[in-house]
């Protein structure tokens, strides 16, 4: 949020009936329905530490940088769009 360091956090939890490694692979595969990348109208995705992504959804561009990519643990990346007003928000997916 502009002029503020307060954070707003959204947390979604889901039990997926599959082993963590399989879920990890599916989460980063744009062909799998339901992961965020699959919704993209245009996508550039390089899911490794310091890898970047470009995600176009409903005409809005989103950019980010992967900061943690652990197959059996956490995927963490930054998230920037016109709605973040130049600030980096973050997305974390824990297995």
């Amino acid at each position: 949020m502009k002029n503020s360091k307060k954070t707003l956090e959204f947390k979604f939890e889901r039990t997926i009936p599959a082993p963590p490694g399989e879920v990890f692979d599916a989460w980063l595969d744009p062909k799998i329905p339901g992961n965020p990348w699959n919704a993209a109208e245009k996508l550039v995705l390089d899911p490794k530490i310091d890898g970047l992504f470009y995600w176009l959804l409903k005409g809005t561009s989103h950019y980010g940088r992967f900061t943690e990519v652990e197959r059996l643990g956490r995927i963490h990346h930054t998230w920037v769009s016109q709605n973040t007003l130049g600030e980096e928000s973050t997305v974390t997916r824990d297995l």
Partner: protein
Amino acid sequence: MLGMDRLTDVLTAISHPTRRAIIGQLANGPARFLDVAKPFDTALNAVTKHLKLLERAGLIERRKHGREVLISFRAEPLRQVAGWVHEYERFWNERLDQFEQYFKNKRRRRRSDEKL
């Protein structure tokens, strides 16, 4: 759609417990400034500052009734914030429903293959 600047104003306004208490109080009906300030153990100018932030966010309005000024609560900005939050909730829940379904279908296929 709620603009980001307006959203920031509303979220800032509701981030403080005293301002949320003022909203709770005014949700029962309009009140005069001194009545609004009465329950709080803070200086009147601190209450004035809280009211200014609430007013900037569109959460309260002041109206003159004869010689008195009545402060009343406006719920619309809170409804807009709820709508904004709901958009994210809907997007991610729909995605996760599809993601979960993908694995359920995969497991079902695997089981039927095993039976063959």
